[in-house]
């Protein structure tokens, strides 16, 4: 599986400027002095003054040009002062909103911890855009890292790149990034291994909300493994056997059931069983399959029926599917709902 880095530090992206628009004709443009950054410039820009960072670069794409405005400038341009390039250090590796994976198919979602790169993920930074990533604290290990068209599979190569000027322009912070080129070879799935960093993931995710989760719209809201805030819907835990195939099961849920349930989303992943404090200690596999059924807003209330469909399916085809047993962990009901 891969994770693609989304935000950029492009000159031509409105989101990178203090007034949420690229500098207008004749603008005074200012980059923060002490923030290293690589900025891709695609278009033509007329500027009267360009204050560059002390360490950084403007990469000029084929259509890029800076011209000094002579007689023409937008009369509205001086309103609100200079166009300030927003702090390029604001993007954190741990922010789930900043990554995209192939699992963006409608009806499927990932728990927050699994929206940032997992242990066996291939991490891709598109070179069609400039970018900057805060690595935060701690050490992260992924399967591979692709930057500027190069794919790093060896730890030494990646370390050398990160220490180079090109690397330092794009990655910052005390955190360590490593690659161990092992794909997930287990058809039943691999644990994402982001438990330790969940506090950082949630801090980044909830930063715009002052760190507080929005209230859930149901009673008996619950929090799945790897999720930052409570959800409404259900969790079904599966004990998997040797024949279990995570991808196939995900497709089965999507294709067979999910289309019938508007407003329901499903996340299927392998999680560590031991981390559930209320789990009865005993022999058995140390991992299980977490199936999260999340109700959208407004609540459609389809989760209980889908849980029944899933249980019935497993009762009938469990052996073929490689599911040994299924347990309903959580089932929420709407606030004042008529169930």
């Amino acid at each position, binding site marked *: 599986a891969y994770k693609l880095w989304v935000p950029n530090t492009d000159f031509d992206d409105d989101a990178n400027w203090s007034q949420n628009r690229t500098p207008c*004709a004749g603008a005074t443009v200012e980059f923060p002095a002490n923030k290293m950054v690589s900025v891709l410039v695609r278009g033509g820009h*007329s500027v009267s003054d360009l204050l560059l960072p002390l360490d950084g670069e403007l990469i000029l794409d084929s259509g890029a040009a*800076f*011209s000094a405005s*002579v*007689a023409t400038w937008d009369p509205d341009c001086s309103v609100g002062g200079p166009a300030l390039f927003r702090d390029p250090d604001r993007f954190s590796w741990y922010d789930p909103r900043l990554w995209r994976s192939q699992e963006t198919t409608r009806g499927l979602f990932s728990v927050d911890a699994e929206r940032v790169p997992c242990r066996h993920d291939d991490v891709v930074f598109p070179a069609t855009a400039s970018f900057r990533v805060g690595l935060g604290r701690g050490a992260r290990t992924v399967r591979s890292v692709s930057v500027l068209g190069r794919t790093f599979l060896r730890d030494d190569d990646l370390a050398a790149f990160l220490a180079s000027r090109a690397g330092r322009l794009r990655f910052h912070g005390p955190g360590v990034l490593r690659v161990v080129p092992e794909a997930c070879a287990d058809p039943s799935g691999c644990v994402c291994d982001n438990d330790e960093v969940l506090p950082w993931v949630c801090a980044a995710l909830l930063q715009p909300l002052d760190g507080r989760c929005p209230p859930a719209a149901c009673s008996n809201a619950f929090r799945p493994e790897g999720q930052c805030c409570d959800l409404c819907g259900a969790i079904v835990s599966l004990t998997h056997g040797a024949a279990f195939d995570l991808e196939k099961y995900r497709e089965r849920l999507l294709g067979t059931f999910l289309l019938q349930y508007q407003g329901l989303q499903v996340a299927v992943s392998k999680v560590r069983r031991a981390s559930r404090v209320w789990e009865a200690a005993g022999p058995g596999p140390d991992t299980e399959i977490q199936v999260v059924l999340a109700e959208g807003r407004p609540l459609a209330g389809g989760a209980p029926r889908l849980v029944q469909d899933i249980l019935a399916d497993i009762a009938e085809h469990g052996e073929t599917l490689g599911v040994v047993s299924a347990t309903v962990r959580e089932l929420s009901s709407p606030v004042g709902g008529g169930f």
Partner: protein
Amino acid sequence: ETGGPELQRHKRNTDVQQPRIATESGNLVFLTGSAQNIEFRPGSLGKIKLNDEDLSECLHQIQRNKDDIIDLKKGTVPQNISSQILQLNAKLVDL
């Protein structure tokens, strides 16, 4: 609606008058209009460098070369020629 003529004027100006930093097939090109300059002003202790060469040093060397050439043109006679001619004169006097 006001954007129309403004953009029009802008367009014309960028074609003709505005100094520009542009790219052409990966070349980095600095262009100026008919009477506009491109000026490089490093700080008082800063240099203008072409790869590893200090351009100010090069420009000083041009001036030094020019001064040297003026001196050479003045016809300052090479010393050994002068001395030989003096010797010749002396010999002639001694005859």
